[in-house]
């Protein structure tokens, strides 16, 4: 079973459209994230949710709105898509283990291309 599953894998859409990327984790983790990886491969955090509550909200346009209906899901909705939104978006989840270490898993990524 896939630990962190995000759909779709590829998304090609026109400027101005609204699109959503879905993410689900079946690990029972309490924290979920959205990252954006740009063309230079830098992975930047966008949002972090802990138990459905927003805890990290980096400087991203308010066209990006995360939604967490429950602990296992964190979807990303993007309004009025722009060319600069083209990137690979990664969902991730993590939890703190009993020994103090953390466990983190990433989804397979969604390559968004805005034309």
């Amino acid at each position, binding site marked *: 079973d896939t630990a962190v599953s995000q759909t779709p894998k590829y998304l090609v859409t026109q400027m101005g459209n609204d699109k959503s990327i879905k993410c689900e984790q079946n690990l029972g983790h309490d924290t979920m994230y959205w*990252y954006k990886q740009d063309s230079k*491969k*830098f992975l930047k955090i966008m949002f*972090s949710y802990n138990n459905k509550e927003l805890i990290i909200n980096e400087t991203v346009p308010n066209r990006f709105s995360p939604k967490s209906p429950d602990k296992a899901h964190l979807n990303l909705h993007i309004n009025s898509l722009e060319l600069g939104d083209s990137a690979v978006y990664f969902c991730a989840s993590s939890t703190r283990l009993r020994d103090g270490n*953390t466990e*983190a898993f990433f989804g*397979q990524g969604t390559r968004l291309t805005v034309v």
Partner: protein
Amino acid sequence: AQTVTQSQPEMSVQEAETVTLSCTYDTSESDYYLFWYKQPPSRQMILVIRQEAYKQQNATENRFSVNFQKAAKSFSLKISDSQLGDAAMYFCASQNRDDKIIFGKGTRLHILP
């Protein structure tokens, strides 16, 4: 299969000293990226350094540098002049052209004052 192995679950270094974190990987691709990420208690992943596989020159970022041995599939991270703020989990990762990022299990780095 794409794998990343970090054989050191924990390491300690004296403040101001140098420490090297090990990472080996396996991939059938010829074109790939390698990364070291730092994970502080907030649990977000912070990129420390990246290396394109086609570049022979080792990447450096201030006090952080890598020793990239492509034939041996080794990608170690050297931290010079260790600082207390360097204490964190460090993850080695690889990414092929299909975008999937594979992480190692991490190395917890302790900085001793």
